[in-house]
């Protein structure tokens, strides 16, 4: 696989090291002279000096081949958005993944067609939610393009579904139970699986149906 990585900060440098170890071909673009010099010393000719938002730099990196994957992981959201757009719209790059530094900019990426994004702040917030599951429903993974999310629910003692068979639980449209985790083991949910207090249930649900799923499993 050929990958262009735009931005040689901690994220870009580490992703590049791993991809190289896995045997992939990588070009890493870094603009800052000091950072570039250190990366080049370590990684050699894989590193290219330049502004990845300039079309000529992307072309030197082989954007026209095009790469199988373009990673826009600079510390600047506008730059990441423009890099992704240049790659996808200008050169038909099949897959671009962009880093979102400020989660408030996420909406701009979606509006402009860059649907595959990674945001550290949002991930950390997800982990915080996981530790403090006040709303009952913990979002583990968001599949933006599909409009689906994988959520975790802990079945409480007095939940309406405690003691019920999964097949008999009335779920909202667009929701499916996947698995139950109890006593350190996980099993896939079958219609005859009994939901017990303390169970951690994984479900896949559309964004619209998430509140209804919470009511179905936890009561109001």
């Amino acid at each position, binding site marked *: 696989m050929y990958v262009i990585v735009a931005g040689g900060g901690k994220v870009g440098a580490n992703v590049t090291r791993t991809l190289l170890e896995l045997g992939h071909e990588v070009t890493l673009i870094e603009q800052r002279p000091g950072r570039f010099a250190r990366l080049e010393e370590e990684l050699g000719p894989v590193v290219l000096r330049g502004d990845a938002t*300039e*079309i000529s730099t992307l072309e030197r990196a082989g954007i026209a081949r095009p790469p199988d994957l373009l990673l826009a992981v600079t510390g600047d959201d*506008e730059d990441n958005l423009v890099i992704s757009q240049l790659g996808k719209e200008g050169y038909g790059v099949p897959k671009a993944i962009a880093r979102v530094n400020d989660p408030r900019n996420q909406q701009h990426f979606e*509006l402009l067609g860059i649907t595959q994004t990674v945001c550290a702040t949002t991930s950390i917030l997800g982990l915080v939610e996981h530790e403090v599951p006040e709303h009952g429903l913990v979002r583990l993974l968001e599949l933006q393009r599909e409009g689906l999310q994988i959520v975790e629910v802990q079945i409480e003692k007095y939940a309406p579904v405690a003691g019920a068979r999964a097949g008999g639980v009335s779920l909202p449209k667009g929701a499916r139970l996947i698995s139950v985790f109890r006593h350190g083991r996980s099993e896939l949910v079958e219609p005859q699986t009994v939901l017990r207090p303390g169970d951690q249930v994984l479900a896949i649900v559309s964004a619209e149906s998430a509140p209804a799923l919470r009511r179905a499993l936890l009561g109001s």
Partner: protein
Amino acid sequence: MIGCGRVGSAVAKALAAEGWDVTAVDESADALQRLGPGWRGGFVLGHGMDTTVLERAGVAEADAAVVSTDGDNTNIVIGQVLQRRYGIGTVVVRVLDPARARFYGERGLSTVCPTQTAISVLLDTVRAGAGTARTPA
């Protein structure tokens, strides 16, 4: 007017003088000084990537927008947001890099490239001068 530097403030003042209702947005409070003591239009302090700032500036009702902050990519992103999210009909974006200006210009964003303008004017001036001055032997 998103970005109220030398270009933005001059365009804002000219449009206001022609009777437009103009609001300027800039990250720096100093930008208000550039609009002069007689400024009767609006001014919103904040970054144009922030939709609450844009909405406070009234983008939902705007007929036209000019985006000229000091960052090409910032302008390109804000310009597209104003066009696609808020449906502003006339959006003009300042892009210094000629290649990016052309790329987004071809994709429906109205871009103005001062660099390209300078290149063209300089070339035309030199060529025009070459015709009247000493002719090569």
